């Protein structure tokens, strides 16, 4: 069962909504939790035990952290003997060490599960390659585990819960059910977004009754998600699969088209799924954070990542970038760099260490191939270079009297960013790094303009009709993006229309999704892309 399946839309979700509304308020979270476990089980079966273990682990470790802090506070406030300043310091240091130990123990459990289940095959394979190089008689045994759905997402949620308790942003919750629902809420399971405990747990457990506006607005958001997923993403999948499955058969403009269309596919797929997720949450009165903010309007790579998969970027900033930046080593490096190279490089050098950590984690989080690591390093280098050369670009622009706020300059920046994005996604989608490199190289070696006119683009799995449907759908997505950029709420506007117009509009969108959706006979079944990460 996936979010775009008829089973989810027309059976699972209505049954959960109805059950939720019919039971007394204090039982509603239980309905959501039960539905979440049924949903999880329907995809990953017995692997549900991993999620249960993760939940139990953070529950008890969170309480342990909380207890330890309370114990410290009691001993500080009510010492058995009179304490000197040194005693107090020693006590504080001892408890800091203890709490840090507990935190690392908790993080270690979560990370070990993720590393073993998701990465053992990749790391084991690479270590074996090295062992073969040195003619080692011993090789590591090959392990490949079945991955529970959403492990990459719920593990990050689990870690953020523990770290937030450690830094006293939240209190450990002694309500296991509430925590379990935070970890397992079914709309979040497949593709996130990555929520924080303080953001969602409260409203999830509140058991608010269904409200007409929430349900109708939620349904409209789900419909919009289906439009993007079924009409655009799943249709583009046919061309993308054709080219990326036989990369050596294509070159030049065909590769460029495939990279661009894959980027649009990924966006329509992921953001469409997030629309369904947020819409589902909205129906239950749960606010789920946005994960996209018109990413293709970005004017730089770093802005792109503030608009694309926002919750992953925010997580990496809070739990990788800042902790690395605050280590003694990086702080000292900052001081010495400022002294040696001045203020600008004094900021760049230490932050590049933290930035490197962020991008390696970003790459590895997406998958277990060298192309994903390359993808991370690619953005690290681009963003780092952008930071390094920013003062120089500013100086050149001023001396040439270029207005960096002008429309033309902004448009050129957007085009540059799009090129960066398309190139990155080419490597991201390729089977491996070598294939990505070959495909990228073949853009230049096999470039012929007549590819655009000789009809070869129509032999890649999409007919002219399909291209026209994609084009019109992308124009609609672009228009909606422009309206959102201007902070216009389309659903509020629609709610203001008279009933005939409103229903006519909704019927039209539903019929468009049913007729032009790329599902069933004649199409390749397309999985939710981010659910595989």
């Amino acid at each position, binding site marked *: *069962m996936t979010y775009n*399946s*008829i*089973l989810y839309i*027309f*059976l699972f979700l209505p049954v959960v909504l109805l059950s939720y509304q019919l039971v007394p308020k204090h039982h509603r979270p239980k309905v959501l939790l039960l539905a979440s476990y049924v949903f999880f089980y*329907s*995809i990953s079966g017995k692997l549900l035990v991993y999620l249960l273990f993760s939940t139990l682990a953070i529950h008890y470790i969170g309480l342990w952290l909380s207890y330890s802090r309370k114990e410290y506070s009691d001993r500080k406030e009510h010492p058995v003997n009179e304490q000197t300043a040194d005693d107090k310091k020693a006590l504080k240091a001892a408890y800091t060490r203890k709490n840090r130990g507990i935190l690392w123990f908790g993080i270690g459990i979560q990370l070990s599960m993720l590393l073993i289940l998701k990465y053992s095959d990749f790391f084991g394979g690479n270590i074996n390659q090295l062992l073969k190089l040195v003619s080692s008689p011993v090789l590591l045994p*090959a392990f490949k585990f079945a991955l529970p759905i959403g492990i990459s997402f719920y593990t990050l949620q689990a870690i953020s819960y523990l770290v937030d308790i450690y830094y006293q942003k939240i209190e450990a919750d002694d309500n296991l059910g509430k925590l379990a629902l935070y970890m397992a809420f079914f709309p979040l399971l497949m593709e996130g977004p990555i929520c924080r405990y303080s953001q969602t747990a409260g409203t999830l457990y509140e058991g608010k009754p*269904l*409200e*007409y506006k929430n349900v109708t607005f939620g349904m409209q958001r789900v419909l919009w998600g289906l439009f993007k997923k079924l009409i655009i993403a799943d249709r583009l999948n046919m061309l993308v699969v054709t080219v990326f*499955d*036989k990369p050596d058969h294509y070159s030049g403009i065909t590769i460029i088209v495939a990279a661009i269309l894959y980027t649009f596919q990924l966006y329509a797929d992921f953001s469409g799924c997030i629309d369904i997720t947020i819409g589902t949450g909205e129906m239950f009165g749960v606010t789920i954070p946005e994960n996209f903010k018109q990413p293709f309007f970005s004017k730089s790579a770093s802005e792109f990542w503030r608009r694309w998969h926002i919750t992953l970027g925010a997580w990496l900033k809070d739990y990788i970038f800042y902790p690395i930046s605050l280590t003694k080593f990086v702080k000292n490096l900052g001081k010495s760099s400022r002294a040696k190279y001045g203020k600008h490089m004094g900021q760049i050098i230490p932050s590049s260490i933290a930035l490197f950590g962020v991008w390696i984690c970003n790459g590895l989080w997406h998958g277990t191939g060298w192309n994903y690591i390359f993808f991370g390093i690619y953005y690290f280098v681009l963003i780092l270079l952008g930071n390094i050369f920013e003062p120089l670009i500013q100086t050149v622009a001023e001396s040439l009297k270029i207005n960096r706020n002008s429309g033309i300059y902004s448009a050129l920046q957007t085009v540059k960013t799009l090129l960066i994005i398309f190139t990155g996604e080419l490597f991201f989608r390729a*089977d491996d790094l070598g294939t990505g490199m070959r495909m990228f190289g073949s853009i230049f070696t096999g470039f012929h303009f007549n590819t655009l006119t000789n009809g070869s683009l129509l032999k890649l799995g999409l*007919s002219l*009709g399909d291209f026209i449907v994609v084009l019109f759908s992308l124009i609609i997505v672009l228009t909606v993006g422009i309206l959102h950029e201007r902070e216009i709420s389309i659903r509020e506007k629609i709610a203001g229309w008279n009933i005939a117009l409103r*229903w006519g509009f*909704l*019927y039209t969108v*539903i*019929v468009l999704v*049913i*007729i*032009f*959706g790329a*599902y*069933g*006979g*004649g*199409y390749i079944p397309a999985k939710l892309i981010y659910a595989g990460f």
Partner: protein
Amino acid sequence: MQSKHIIKPILFFSGLFILLYGLSYLFLPYNSTGEGPYKKLNGILSAPKDTIDYITLGDSECSTSISPMELWNKHGYAGYNCGVPGQRLQDTYYLLQQILNNQSPKVVLLETNAFYRSFDYSNALQDAVDKAAQNIFPVYKYHNSWKYFNLGTLENIPKKPGHKIPRAYKGYQYNSVTKPYLDGPYVHKTDKIEPIDAQPLFYLNKIVDLCKERNIQLILYSAPTPLCWTYEKHNAADSFASKNNLTYIDLNLHAEKLKIDWARDTRDKGNHMNYYGAKKVTDYIGDYLSEHTDLTDRRGQKQYASWNTALKKYLKLTQVS
């Protein structure tokens, strides 16, 4: 919620129901049995009565591993690959029943991978909901007909021949993509048995009974697949075959004899055969059928003239590889 908040959704969904019901009439093709997702079934069901001498059954391991046209080319046996990706044995059983209404094959080759495709409630429910939606609103099934829709006549014109899955494949799922399998030997001799679940076993027995009843020679075979097959599974299939006096050919144990080149003969890193692998499997199975069954060479028979035309088309379609 107020009463208007209950009446409005009821009216909205009633309107939607009527709209989709009406649209369905526009989208139904002229001959609804010739289109849609049941092409394969239609392929063999549309074959003239009692002209098929053997069929192959199973899931994607079957549909990708035996090419009937290769068998026709070498031995002149008229057969059909009725493998359906993801098919469970219960569906295989009902498919066989349906095929036997119109055909009387002498041999049925049953691929064994589906022995381990246990019943999945979620998939079954998904299928049931899908089928219900297709029955109530055929537009859900035939929505793709917009590509052939004539606005002038408000009718759905039949697809052009070029858009159909070529009948020359006779059910075989052609694919020439190569993605090598590199992890070396995968069937390691053992006495252990991986038991077949009760549900697939129940339908397996029904298939055996049905073949006996219709006097059909049932042969079990396992297509080479490092990702799906193990010696434990081999032992279970072998034991089942012995108990029921059936022939069982495990090609995973004969990969060297077949000269399977795992760097070239698989389309997805050892999960399925590609065209090159299927040719080798088909060649082996063809020789076996030639030696151990009394199938007839139909190449010279007038009734089978279309098969020679199909062969030319098949050879052309597979020529690029």
